[in-house]
Each structure stands twice: as structure tokens, then as C-alpha cells.
């Protein structure tokens, strides 16, 4: 029964939240009653778990939308170039911050990093919208995303090359992704944007499910295909942009989760598919954080290493299992 699968994954999500909050990296007694543990829980552990859930949910939702829109199981926020745009902008702020006087005042404030990430993502999105206006929503747009990613990457390399070693390290660490940098206002902003984006994508799911028939046929069924496609791009940009801004470019979740969800939850009801995606996305992000940071495993890994190590094999498995 499909409905019970959602329940199972929501229960799993809750279990992972408890594990992540009370056990990772070390055990904290939930009813310890000392100020020290309380502070750690409220200032570090709970924001971290909430951030992971938001990131997993937002990236999985945007991956699902892009894969359905482009009818391509490899599409994801990464492929559209959104992440690389954010990355370059943050690179300029972190690395350029020390040498460019104008940016000096902004240097290494989390506000400026987040703002730069969001601006970068949004800028690439605007170019993508311009391209889609001319060429429609075909593979051209994906090709465009990949090429933009390469160009941004080249600029990135150039900036890295010119950077001071300390700045370079700081930027490299940002690039590895983290769920630990959102506290206070930034957590609020992120949760708010994620909820808004998820509600928006929920609304888009019904027309998107008709678009499996192709844009032309969907149009004749009364779907405003152009408006829906445009909204999907904007909603994706919002979700992926805000996550990249606060957590860095998180790889694999956006591409892997929708494929797993589709295989486990075979349905034409895209609204419940979205909820399932969000649950799995949250689970995967939490799991990555737990595996990467739990002292039981005796190693500490940045989030992008774990997403690739867990997400990579999953994507491979799906590709190999797909009917040719």
C-alpha cells in the first residue's frame, strides 16, 4: 500500500531526527536539565537537524520538478547551473573580500555569503529564463546549464588561482557544504523559504502530472504549460538558491532522491509523490549528517563527501536497473 510507505518514511525521518539531535556527534541526555546541554541542543543540534531536513526536502522537491519538466532522470538543481552560479558569487565574496576594498566590509559575514549565494543562483536562473523564453523547455536548457556551469567553473579556478591560501581554504570548506552554519535569523529565513517553495511546488504538481503526456497534449487538456514551466524554474531557483546560499552547494540529493522515490512509490499522483520525495530527501540529508559526524564511526566527513558516497551508488544502482 502506497500510503503506508509515506508513513514509514515519516517515522524513519522522526527516528533520524532523534538520532541526529541527541547522538551526533556525541550523546546528550534529552532530560539532562543542565544549562550546557540545553544550550547545545537549542543552539546547535536542533538547528542542524532542521537545516538538514530543509536542505533535503528543498533539493528533492526541485530535483523532482526539473526531472519531470525535462523528462530527464539526470536533471537536478546542479545541472541547471544554479549551484555553480551561487558558488562563483560566494567565491568572489570570500576570496575577493580581503583584496577588494569595496568587499572588505562584507568580508566573511554569513549575511554576505548567503546573500551572494542567493544572488548568484538567481542570476543564473534569470539567464536560464531568458534562454527558455527563446528555446522552450527542451534539452537545450539542460545543455545551457551544463555549459554555464563550466564557464562559472573556469572563473572559479581563476579566482582560486589568485587567492590567498587562507581564503582558499575557507572557500573550499564552504564548497564542501555544511548544515551547521544556520542559526538564528538565517535558520528562520531558510525554513520560511523552504516552506514557501514546497507549498508552491505542491500547487504545481497537478499540472505537472498532466505534462507527462508532452507539452502539446497537456496544453490541449487545459494546462497552461508555459506558465507552469516558468513557475517550475522559478520555484526551483528559489529552493535550490536558498539552500545553496546557507549550506553551500549540496551534491547528489537533488538528483538521486526523485529517482529513488519514483521507483519505490510508483504513482501518477504527483502530490503524494512530492510528499514522499520530501520525506526521503529529509531522511537522506539527516543520514548523511549522521554518518559524516557521529563519533561512533571514528571519522568526520564534510556533507558533500557523504552525499556523494551514499548518493553516488544509489544513482548508479538506479541507472543500472533502469529498463533500456
Amino acid at each position: 500500500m502506497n500510503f503506508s510507505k509515506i508513513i514509514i518514511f515519516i517515522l524513519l525521518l522522526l527516528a533520524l531526527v532523534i538520532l541526529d539531535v541527541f547522538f551526533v556527534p556525541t550523546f546528550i541526555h534529552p532530560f539532562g536539565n543542565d544549562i550546557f546541554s540545553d544550550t547545545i541542543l537549542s543552539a546547535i543540534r536542533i538547528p542542524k537537524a532542521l537545516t538538514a531536513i530543509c536542505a533535503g526536502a528543498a533539493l528533492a522537491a526541485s530535483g523532482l520538478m526539473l526531472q519531470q519538466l525535462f523528462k530527464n532522470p539526470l536533471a537536478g538543481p546542479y545541472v541547471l547551473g544554479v549551484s555553480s552560479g551561487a558558488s562563483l558569487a560566494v567565491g568572489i565574496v570570500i576570496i575577493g573580500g580581503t583584496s577588494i576594498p569595496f568587499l572588505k566590509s562584507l568580508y566573511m559575514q554569513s549575511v554576505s555569503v548567503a546573500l551572494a549565494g542567493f544572488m548568484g543562483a538567481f542570476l543564473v536562473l534569470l539567464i536560464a529564463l531568458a534562454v527558455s523564453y527563446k528555446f522552450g523547455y527542451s534539452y537545450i536548457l539542460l545543455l545551457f546549464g551544463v555549459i554555464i556551469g563550466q564557464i562559472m567553473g573556469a572563473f572559479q579556478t581563476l579566482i582560486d588561482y589568485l587567492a590567498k591560501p587562507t581564503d582558499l581554504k575557507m572557500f573550499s570548506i564552504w564548497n564542501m557544504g555544511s548544515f551547521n552554519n544556520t542559526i538564528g535569523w538565517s535558520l528562520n529565513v531558510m525554513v520560511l523559504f523552504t516552506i514557501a517553495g514546497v507549498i508552491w511546488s505542491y500547487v504545481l504538481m497537478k499540472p505537472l502530472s498532466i505534462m507527462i503526456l508532452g507539452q502539446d497534449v497537456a496544453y490541449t487538456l487545459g494546462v497552461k504549460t508555459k506558465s507552469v514551466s516558468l513557475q517550475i524554474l522559478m520555484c526551483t531557483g528559489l529552493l535550490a538558491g536558498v539552500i545553496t546560499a546557507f549550506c553551500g552547494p549540496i551534491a547528489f540529493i537533488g538528483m538521486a532522491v526523485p529517482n529513488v522515490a519514483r521507483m519505490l512509490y510508483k504513482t501518477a499522483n504527483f502530490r503524494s509523490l512530492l510528499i514522499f520525495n520530501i520525506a526521503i530527501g529529509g531522511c537522506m540529508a539527516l543520514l548523511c549528517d549522521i554518518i559524516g559526524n557521529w563519533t561512533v564511526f571514528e571519522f568526520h566527513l564534510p556533507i558533500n563527501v557523504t552525499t556523494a558516497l551514499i548518493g553516488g551508488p544509489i544513482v548508479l544502482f538506479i541507472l543500472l536497473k533502469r529498463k533500456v
Partner: protein
Amino acid sequence: MVLKFENITIERKSVELIQTLSTELSTGQFVILTGANGAGKSTLLKTLVGLKPISNGQIFINAKPISAYDHPQRALLMSFINSKKIEEDYIRVVDLVRLGRYPYLKVMSEQKIESPLIDAYMEALGLKTIQEKFLNEISDGELQKANIARTLAQDTPIVLMDEPSAFLDYPSKKLLFKLLRQLAIESNKIIICATHDVELAGKFGTQFWHLENKVISISDKSIAWTAN
């Protein structure tokens, strides 16, 4: 229901494909549209359904120009199918057919619309035994039949079909054309069907449009029909 073409000209990328077509169709007609590849059959159907602009002239449904109907209204008047393959793995056949009821869902807000037509057309096209299968488990021909059932389940007075018999085996093609003729006559529909299965369709059409040299010649008998 009357579908009227008044001096319409159709272009594709500013090359003229059809010159000044004027004709009128009323319910009960099953039009077989033939013509060479690239002649403009698909463009004509796409123009009719609103996917392409009319370069010149007017199309009327019940004496009202089609531009006067808004988008959701048109979905209740005209349905459309092309032979593009649906690339989706984990959707059941019956759920695909259900998508045809989407326009009614919009009209009746969020209520889930079940219609006896979904079952009836799956039955008519021989899909009942595979209705619970996923799209990656069935053949291209079966997928095409499911898509046809989806189009018919939309239950519009005008049905526009662009090579619906693609991927179908001979008995299925025959079954399809027979069903379409029956629907046009008994359920009072106007069906326009572009096809390359000229001989077979010739036995079932009620009107024949042949597109050649930018002109559609209209006849009530096909060549194959008279030969028989």
C-alpha cells in the same frame, strides 16, 4: 456542433502550407486526412487545437471564433493526440487514461472525477487485462492504445488525432478506425484523423481530405473505398 473553416491559411516557419481552406463540418463526420510527409497535416491539427496561430482566416465552433473560447473551455470542446511516445516508467495504464478527465477536474474544483468512460474505452481498445500494468511493462502499441483511450475519455465533441494508428498492429488499426467511425456517427462527434494507413482508413471514414500542393481536396469517397 459545427466546425467551420473560413479562408484559413496555415504556415510553418513562414512557409505557406495550406492556402485558403474553406469548409464546414457537422457532427457525425469521421474525416480521414491524408497527405505526404511534411505536407502540413500535423500543422493543421495543431492550429485547430490552438497550439499554433492561424496566419489568416478564421475557425469557428458553433459560429463563435475559436479565439473567443478561453483555454479551459477549449479543453472541453477539443481533444488531441499525437504519436509522440510517453516516456514515463512508473505510471499505471489506468492512471494514464484517467488523465483525460483533467479538464473536468478543473471545472468541478478539486473533486476526483471518476467516469464510466474510462472503463468503457479501455474495454473497447482491449486494455482491461493490462490496466494495472506500469508503462515500462507494456509495448509501444499498447501504450499508444492507452493514449487513445485517454484522448477519448476526455469526451469532447471534436477529436483531433495525428497518426493515432502508429505502432498498432493490423487488427488493432482496424478496431481503432471502426471505433472512431462508430463514435462519430453514434456519439455525435467530429473526428479528424491524420493517417498514412490510407487503404484501411478508407473503409471507415465518412469524409476524405487529401492535402497536396497547399490545397485540401475534399471528397466523400476515398480511392480505396471506390476500388472496393
